[in-house]
């Protein structure tokens, strides 16, 4: 459903992606792995239109993807950034409300009630300011917010960073649930176990290019690839 | 953090040469303009130190200069103190005023800092405007220039005075570089980039801000004293916020945080103003449009624009040239 071919992108003068190509398929979970600074987050930002596409092509549902983040979101892609980006001036409730509904995408019917069921902790903090949450709470809020958009493709950048194992587990279960419901996802992860147990497909990025492609089982089995590309 | 580079040196040398040439050859009005530029340049250097290297965008530097001018006038003309002593006194007074303002405003940032400094500037303005000792709205006249006849200089001659200002500007520039390269200046730059971290590292942030603001105040005070000596008349308008605003425009127009840029800005601004006001009374319109155009070009002022275009290239050329001359250097680098 989303296909990147020979994408070049970066920050101003600094080029980070050098002809990166990958494909995320409908109804499947794609994990993007790679070392720090490999260009994983840059890839996601380029998809979202947060960074300009210098050359190459990104196709979503058969059409070239929009260039502005607003239009990309409208076409049904939700994004959970590495930095979470909770709105500090808004309460937790408002943070969720402004993301809710909008494009009426044929989603899995995520509602306020359902995300609060998923993250009861957020329910306790509904009227708190966004930045009064701890790091972990902010991560939950960012995920909840993205789910409320009822996207067709969910993009998560390191959803487990800084989360306690028990919450990681919870998120794993919930994402797994989404997967069985048929939601397409792209997940960037450092947590190898987490990523490979969730993903169907895996690409490994190194120095701005895809250096390994295959299925989750394959990479789990391929000790050599793990060692070379991920250093585990 | 402040660094000199080839382009900066080149522009400095060019500016100094042009000023010297102008000082030696210009007619009466040309010298007036030159002196105006030189005094403004000292003021904007003071402002660039705090705004460009400390993130303390001040809207009271005009007022500080005004305080310097009034202090000098009162000390020399009213209290009868010898001009050199009065001058030192005035600089000390503005230094102290700057230190206090810096200390008091040290917890404010961004627009709040701007407004806090504006408040102090306006307080000084209102006070000077209304207090009879300062001559009120009518201002004060009869201000004397420094008497340097001992070393054979007559500052009442416009040319000598212009050269005198040029020499002081050179000294101030040197002092500014020393300040920025000192431990204090380095810490200031750290504070600008991340105040919270500097504090967590154990730096007493407000003291650094106050100290630098005080030093900058002294320089602004010197500019004020020179302005008073140049015009030999002062009025409260000197302290008004628009003067500070203009100084800020000059700094940004020239290139904030480059030290060289504001000098370029001062020259450009004064010359532009004089050329335009000779043609039309609507010269503010033209200046406004030029300002907007410069900013839209997205450069850090005129100098920033030049530096972005040619700075790197020149730097490379020079590096290549020096390599060729010093093969030993290359070996060591490799």
């Amino acid at each position, binding site marked *: 459903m989303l296909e990147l071919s020979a994408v070049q992108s970066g920050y101003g003068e600094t080029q980070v992606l050098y002809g990166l190509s990958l494909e995320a398929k409908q109804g499947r979970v794609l994990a993007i792995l790679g070392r720090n600074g490999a260009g994983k987050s840059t890839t996601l930002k380029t998809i979202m239109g947060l960074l300009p596409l210098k050359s190459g092509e990104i196709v979503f549902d058969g059409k070239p993807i929009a260039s502005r983040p607003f239009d990309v979101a409208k076409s049904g892609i939700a994004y959970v950034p590495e930095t979470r980006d909770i709105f500090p001036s808004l309460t937790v409730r408002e943070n969720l409300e402004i993301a809710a509904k909008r494009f009426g995408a044929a989603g899995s019917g995520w509602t306020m009630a359902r995300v609060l069921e998923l993250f009861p902790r957020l329910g306790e903090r509904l009227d708190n300011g966004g930045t009064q949450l701890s790091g972990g709470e902010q991560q939950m809020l960012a995920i909840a917010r993205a789910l409320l958009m009822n996207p067709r493709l969910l993009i998560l950048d390191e959803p487990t960073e800084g989360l306690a194992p028990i919450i990681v587990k919870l998120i794993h279960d919930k994402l797994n649930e989404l997967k069985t419901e048929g939601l397409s996802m792209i997940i960037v992860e450092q947590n190898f176990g987490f990523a490979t147990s969730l993903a169907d497909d895996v690409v490994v990025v190194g120095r701005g290019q895809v250096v390994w492609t295959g299925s989750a089982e394959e990479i789990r089995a391929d000790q050599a690839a793990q060692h070379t590309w991920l250093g585990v | 953090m402040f660094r000199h580079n080839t382009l900066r040196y080149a522009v400095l040398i060019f500016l100094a040469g042009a000023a010297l040439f102008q000082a030696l050859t210009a*007619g*009466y*009005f040309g010298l*007036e303009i030159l002196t*105006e530029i030189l005094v403004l340049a000292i003021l904007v250097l003071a402002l660039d130190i705090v705004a460009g290297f400390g993130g303390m965008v001040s809207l009271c530097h005009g007022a500080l200069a005004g305080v310097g001018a009034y202090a000098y006038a009162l000390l020399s003309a009213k209290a009868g103190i010898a001009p050199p002593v009065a001058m030192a006194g005035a600089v000390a007074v503005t230094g102290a005023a700057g230190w206090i303002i810096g200390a008091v405003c040290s917890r404010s940032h961004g627009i709040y800092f701007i407004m806090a400094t504006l408040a102090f500037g306006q307080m000084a303005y*209102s006070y000077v*405007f*209304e207090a009879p000792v300062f*001559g*009120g*709205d*009518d*201002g004060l*006249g*009869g201000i004397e220039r420094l008497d340097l006849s001992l070393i054979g200089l007559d500052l009442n001659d416009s040319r000598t005075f212009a050269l005198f200002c040029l020499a002081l500007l050179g000294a101030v520039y040197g002092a500014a570089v020393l300040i920025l390269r000192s431990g204090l200046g380095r810490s200031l730059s750290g504070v600008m980039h991340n105040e919270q971290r500097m504090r967590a590292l154990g730096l007493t942030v407000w003291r650094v801000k106050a100290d630098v603001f005080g030093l900058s105040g002294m320089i602004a005070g010197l500019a004020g004293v020179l*302005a008073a000596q140049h*015009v*030999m*008349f*002062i*009025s409260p*308008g*000197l302290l008004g916020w628009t003067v500070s605003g203009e100084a800020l425009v000059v700094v940004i127009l020239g290139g904030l945080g480059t030290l060289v840029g504001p000098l370029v800005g001062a020259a450009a601004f004064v010359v532009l103003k004089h050329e335009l*006001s000779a043609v039309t*009374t*609507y*010269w*503010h319109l033209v200046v406004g449009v030029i300002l907007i155009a410069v900013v839209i070009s997205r450069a850090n002022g005129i100098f920033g624009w030049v530096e972005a275009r040619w700075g790197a290239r020149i730097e490379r050329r020079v590096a290549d040239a020096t390599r060729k001359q010093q093969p030993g250097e290359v070996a060591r680098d490799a």
Partner: protein
Amino acid sequence: EDIKVGLLLPYSGVYAALGNDIDAGFELGLKQFGAETSATFEIVREDTEVKPPVALGKAKKLILQDNVDVVAGIVSSGVLGAVRDMIDGAGVPLIVANAGNDEATGADCSPFITRMSFSNGQVNRPMGKWMAEQGVKKVFTLAPDYAAGRQMIDAFAASFTAAGGEIVGQEFTPFQKTQDFGPYLATAKASGADAVYVFYAGGEAIAFVKQYDSFGLKAELPLYGSGFLTSPLYVNAEGPAAEGVITALHYVPTIDNAENQAFAETFTAATGRVPSEFAVQGYDAARALIEATKTGAADRETLASALRQVSFDGPRGTTSIDPATNNVVQPIYVYETVAGDNGLTQKVVAQLPAEADPVNGCQMAPVTN
């Protein structure tokens, strides 16, 4: 021979309107009377921007670089204070066409500075006596807090109390920072005065007169003032609120004499405006210059000396220079602003005789030649 005149006026800034009126008057004056002298005139204009240091720089330029024979203009007292020493030192005659600070023809007088406009004391002093004569007993005064404001009010207060009146309250409002006079008006109302006497000019005058009326004070507390309050330049912006306000000034466009009629007509024809006191000051400054050249004066020194002895019948009536101070001597007109056929007009209520200002510490060399 050619006489080079430097016109030093604010063409931008808050007093631009005044500068333009003086300039128009000056031009008209040269045109009107130019034929009476053999001298021809070349004008160099410089904008003071109402900033004393800028004005001083421009004055230096006019004197040192352009080598003008005479300087005319200057609207603000601050600017006059700034250029005074320069003018005096360089020995260039200056015809002041507005700035009214008393010192310029008092303690700081100079044989080279001749004032064709007015002095602050001069336009307010007669009003104190006159109001007392009209039976006004208690007055509350208001003016902006700067040198001119204080001088105007002080001159009025001195003559008013000398004539038996009482000042029951005074307020000086922050200059150019006060837009809302409500607080002061309430104080004036509560002061128990019979009348209010004020000095305001320009935008402040408009705001003041309108706000005075809106609070309904005009009926119970008649408004008097220095004539700048209802100057023809602003009175139409003040509108009906200005009706019935009684003020005094050295010129109003409705003065009934032949010179004024001729002046008002030509000025209106040239600019489309009724002439203001500023216009007449420019006009008379030009006239004074021409009168001086008619004596054969042509250089800085002779012009200065000739200017001190100028006297003529102009739009303001008999206008002459007092050689003891170099200030103008002229009648003062008390006038009421009334509704006329084309908007508001000035009804002259009384013409108070011309009086020379006290010398105020001026020590001037006697006229020689």
